[in-house]
């Protein structure tokens, strides 16, 4: 049994079909990446898992539990964290409050403190900015805060939507380094990227999405070596 499994998932925005019978699995401890061009349905796939977009047909199974029709605030309580595209930091909350809201489901104050310290160990920069408003931080800092905020719920499955978007190459390196480190520490990761080269390098397996359908899938290295993929996404 897979850790996360999507079976024949379809999703619509009004009359527009965004996903067509998606089959996808993530095993415990893996980094799985989902690549594809703009509008392919990558973000929608993550949203059907977290519950922001309803699943029309098919099912989503997480740790053997059917979570197909759960609302977002219920899914996150099961340990599925979703770091949305564009980071979506709360601009008028302080950095500290952004972290606190990440642990909204947690009652134990001491546990919240502990997790915050753990976030600081991954992202020392976040600690320096604690009392600043989220909206005043740079793009890279916001991405680190967005990941840190997700770590506050101590997830088992971390879903990241284009974490490298719009960031300078050095920052992108750092972000990918952290993703690897989190995975080494035992976290299962589903990574959506347009930066296909970097993503396939770090991932165990990958899926290539094209206009709402899975076009290719396989080991990261295999996909990297596939000339049709190189041509379409790595040119």
């Amino acid at each position, binding site marked *: 049994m897979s850790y996360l499994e999507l079976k024949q998932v379809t999703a619509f925005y009004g009359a527009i079909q965004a996903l067509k019978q998606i089959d996808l699995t993530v095993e415990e401890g893996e980094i799985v990446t989902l690549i594809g061009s703009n509008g392919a349905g990558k973000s929608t796939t993550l949203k059907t898992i977290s519950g922001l977009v309803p699943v029309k047909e098919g099912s989503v199974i997480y740790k053997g539990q059917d979570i197909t029709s759960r609302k977002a605030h219920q899914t*996150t309580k099961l340990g599925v964290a979703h770091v949305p595209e564009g980071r979506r930091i709360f601009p008028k909350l302080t950095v500290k*409050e952004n972290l606190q809201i990440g642990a909204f489901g947690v009652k134990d104050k001491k546990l919240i403190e502990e997790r915050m310290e753990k976030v600081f160990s991954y992202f020392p920069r976040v600690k320096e900015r604690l009392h600043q408003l989220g909206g005043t931080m740079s793009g890279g800092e916001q991405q680190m805060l967005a990941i840190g905020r997700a770590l506050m719920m101590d997830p088992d499955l971390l879903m990241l939507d284009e974490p490298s978007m719009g960031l300078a190459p050095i920052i992108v390196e750092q972000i990918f380094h952290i993703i690897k480190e989190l995975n080494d520490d035992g976290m299962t990761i589903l990574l959506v990227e347009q930066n296909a080269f970097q993503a396939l390098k770090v991932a165990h397996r990958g899926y290539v999405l094209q206009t709402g359908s899975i076009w290719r899938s396989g080991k990261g290295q295999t996909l990297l070596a596939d000339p049709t993929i190189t041509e379409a996404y790595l040119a």
Partner: protein
Amino acid sequence: MTQVWDTLPQVLIDGLTLGAIYAIIALGYTMVYGILELINFAHGEIFMAGAFIGTAVLIGLTGLGWVAVMPAIFILLLVLVITGGLTGMLGMGIERLAYRPLRKASKLITLITAIGVSFLLQDIVRFITETQQNNYIVNTPSLFPGSLSISGLNIRYSFLVVIIVAILMMVALEFFVNRTKWGLAMRAVAQDQDTASLMSVNVNKVISVTFFVGSALGGATGVLFAIHYGTIDPYIGFILGLKAFTAAVLGGIGNIRGAMAGGMLLGLLEMFAAANLSAITAGLLSSEYKDVFAFAILILVLIFRPEGLFGRAAIEKV
């Protein structure tokens, strides 16, 4: 000029009383707007319902003999808590039944629904009142009769009560919004609902809490109004609600501190105009034109600062 100077202390007292009432009602408008971008026109009627519920509870407690034997301040707290609880649930219920089903409809449709709810509440209160007595104007028993007289200045005890309770309510709200977990969730939902839900925040629950808190404060303010002014009718919520909404806009709609300041300012301006308009315009405009004066100021402010005096802030949409 001497006229202005001589009336100033009384203007301050009356203006602060009225301003405190505007301020707290304005909070209800601003909180709901901050989260849903909805102008909840029924909020004035929540205030009115609070005045009636409070009066009914007070009359009931008088009948039981409690008012005669217990300290007035204890009776006041009891009335405030009961009324706040009931109007809070009323506001929450209105959101659940009337607004939530329209969440995805156009703003205009929700606005018209809110106006409909206003009329409904007015008529329900009027109907119930008329089953109890033969007209719909009600006198509230005075809980804090009498006044202090300091060098010609008349300070009613109920003024002190209104001001103190109003300030306590505002401080409590500030604390709630800025220092508690649910306040944090409220601010997050106001900024980005989808992302808030990814943080395990149940957005609908936060919206319910917002309506509860705003309506509880609005209803409690109705109690203060009834106790201070002594006479209420089912239509007091209309003009007062309109002015409180104005105060919210004056302070920058969506901004909690702005609503407090806007309310105070509007109350002071109105009482200033009531006392001095005739003297300032050499008898041309009588004090009845006080509203014109207050709204003229509002329009001036909005011409130069369309976002309101305190711009955008605490609770806001991105």
